[in-house]
C-alpha cells in the first residue's frame, strides 16, 4: 500500500490529536497477541486489524460450534467445525490485507507460553477459564509484557491493564494483585452454565482493543493498574484502583524454570476440590513456597524428614493446631502412609470453614519413594 492509500485508510484515526501519524506508525510496527478467539477475541481482533496493528497473533485450539455464533461474530454457519484461529485469521486478513497474522492452533500451556508470548509486544487475554488467566498473567509478569485483561459473566464484564508502569508512580500491578489465588472450582459460574448476553463480550472485547491501541499509540490515559466493572443491565461502570502487593510477587513463579513446573490446571481446578495431593504435587507447592507442611506422626517415628521444612504436631494432639490456622493458609498434612493425615484434613476442614488443607497421598513413604530416597 502506498503512502496515500495508508493515509486514506487511517485518515479518521490519524486526524486524532492523540494518535496522529506517529501513533499510526507505532500501530503498524506493533505485534499484539490475542489469546482466545472467542467472544472477547473476535471483536478485539477485528478492531485491532482495522486500526492497522502490523502483526496479530491468534492463539486458539478450539473449533467453531453453533453455540458460539451468538457472540463470536467473526464466524458464520459455514465455519462450524473449522479451527477458530484459522477462520479468524482469514477474516481479518480480508478486512486488512496489509497486516501480518500468525496463528497458533494449540492450547496455551506453561510449556509453550513463554516462547509464543516472547514474540509479541502486548497480550490481550480473551480466554474463558482461570487456569489460562493465571498462566497468562504470570508469563506476562515474567516476560514484562503489558496485558490487557477482559472477562465476562451474564450481563457484566471486567476490563483492565496489567504489567504496565503507571506514569505517576512507575509501579505496575498484575492480576494476582486483584485476585491472588483462583476461586474454588465448585464456586465458579461459567458462561456455559450461567449464560452471557452476546453483546457483553463484544463490548468488553472492544474495550480491550481500545486499551491496546491506546497503549501502543502512546495515548496517556490508559486503564493502568485499574479495572472497570461494567454492568450492562444497570448501565453502570465502577472503577477499581489496584496497587502492587508483596503477596502477588511471592505467588508468581520466580523464573522461567519455576513457571515450566507450575501446574496451572491443577492449581485452578483441583485446589480445593480434593482432599488429597500426590507426592509430585507437593513438590510443585514447595517450589511455589507459601505453604505450611505439618507432620502428624508421633515423635520419633521414622523416616526422618529433613528435605523440606515442616512442623510436627502429633495426631494425638491435633486439636491444638486449630487456633494457629488461618483459612487463607494452604496446608499439607502428612503421616507415614496417608491415613492419619487424611483424618486430620477431614477434621480441619470440618472445624475451619474454607480451610485449604490437603493430605499427602501415600504419606511420606510415597514421597520418599518418588525421590528414590527409600526403595520398595
Amino acid at each position, binding site marked *: 500500500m502506498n503512502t496515500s492509500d495508508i493515509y486514506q485508510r487511517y485518515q479518521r484515526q490519524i486526524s486524532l490529536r492523540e494518535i496522529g501519524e506517529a501513533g499510526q506508525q507505532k500501530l503498524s510496527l506493533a505485534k499484539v497477541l490475542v489469546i482466545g478467539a472467542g467472544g472477547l477475541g473476535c471483536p478485539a481482533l477485528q478492531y485491532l486489524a482495522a486500526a492497522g496493528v502490523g502483526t496479530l497473533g491468534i492463539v486458539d485450539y478450539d473449533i467453531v460450534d453453533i453455540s458460539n455464533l451468538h457472540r463470536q461474530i467473526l464466524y458464520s454457519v459455514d465455519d462450524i467445525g473449522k479451527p477458530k484461529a484459522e477462520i479468524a485469521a482469514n477474516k481479518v486478513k480480508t478486512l486488512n490485507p496489509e497486516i501480518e497474522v500468525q496463528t497458533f492452533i494449540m492450547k496455551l500451556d506453561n510449556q509453550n507460553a513463554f516462547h509464543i508470548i516472547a514474540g509479541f509486544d502486548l497480550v490481550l487475554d480473551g480466554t474463558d477459564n482461570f487456569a489460562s488467566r493465571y498462566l497468562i498473567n504470570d508469563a506476562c509478569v515474567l516476560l514484562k509484557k503489558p496485558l490487557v485483561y477482559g472477562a465476562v*459473566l451474564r450481563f457484566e464484564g471486567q476490563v483492565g491493564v496489567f504489567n504496565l508502569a503507571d506514569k505517576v508512580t512507575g509501579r505496575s500491578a498484575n492480576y494476582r494483585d486483584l485476585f491472588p489465588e483462583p476461586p474454588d472450582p465448585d464456586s465458579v459460574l461459567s458462561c456455559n452454565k450461567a449464560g452471557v448476553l452476546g453483546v457483553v463480550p463484544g463490548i468488553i472485547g472492544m474495550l480491550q482493543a481500545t486499551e491496546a491501541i491506546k497503549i501502543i499509540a502512546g495515548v496517556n490515559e490508559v486503564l493502568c493498574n485499574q479495572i472497570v466493572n461494567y454492568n450492562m443491565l444497570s448501565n453502570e461502570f465502577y472503577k477499581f484502583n489496584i496497587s502492587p502487593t508483596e503477596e502477588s510477587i511471592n505467588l508468581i513463579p520466580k523464573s522461567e524454570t519455576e513457571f515450566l513446573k507450575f501446574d496451572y490446571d491443577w492449581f485452578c481446578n483441583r485446589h480445593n476440590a480434593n482432599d488429597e495431593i500426590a507426592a509430585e504435587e507437593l513438590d510443585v507447592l514447595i517450589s511455589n513456597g507459601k505453604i505450611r507442611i505439618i507432620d502428624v506422626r508421633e515423635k520419633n517415628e521414622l523416616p526422618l524428614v529433613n528435605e523440606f521444612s515442616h512442623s510436627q504436631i502429633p495426631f494425638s494432639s491435633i486439636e491444638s493446631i486449630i487456633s494457629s490456622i488461618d483459612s487463607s493458609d494452604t496446608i499439607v498434612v502428612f503421616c507415614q502412609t496417608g491415613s492419619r493425615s487424611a483424618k486430620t484434613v477431614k477434621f480441619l476442614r470440618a472445624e475451619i470453614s474454607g480451610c485449604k488443607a490437603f493430605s499427602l497421598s501415600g504419606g511420606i513413604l510415597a514421597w520418599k519413594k518418588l525421590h528414590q530416597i527409600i526403595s520398595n
Partner: protein
Amino acid sequence: MEINILTFGQITDITGKTSFIYSDINNTDSLIKELTKAFPELTSIKYSVAVNQQLVHVNTVLNDKDIVALLPPFSGG
C-alpha cells in the same frame, strides 16, 4: 455512621441487591464478619474488597459515607 456497600457478579446473587447500607461498622474485617453472618454463602466464594475504589488486602478503617465494593472474579470470555 453509614457505609455504602456495592456488590458485583455472584455477590449480587447472594445478597440479592447491588447496593445497601450498613451502619456503625468501623473496619473492613468487621464488615465482612457482619456480611458473612447475614449471608453465610459468602464464605463459599472468593472476592476482592475495595474501599472508595481502592483495592485493600488488609483490615482497613472505615469512615462515614465510605463505599465498600465486593468484586468476585469472572472467567468467561
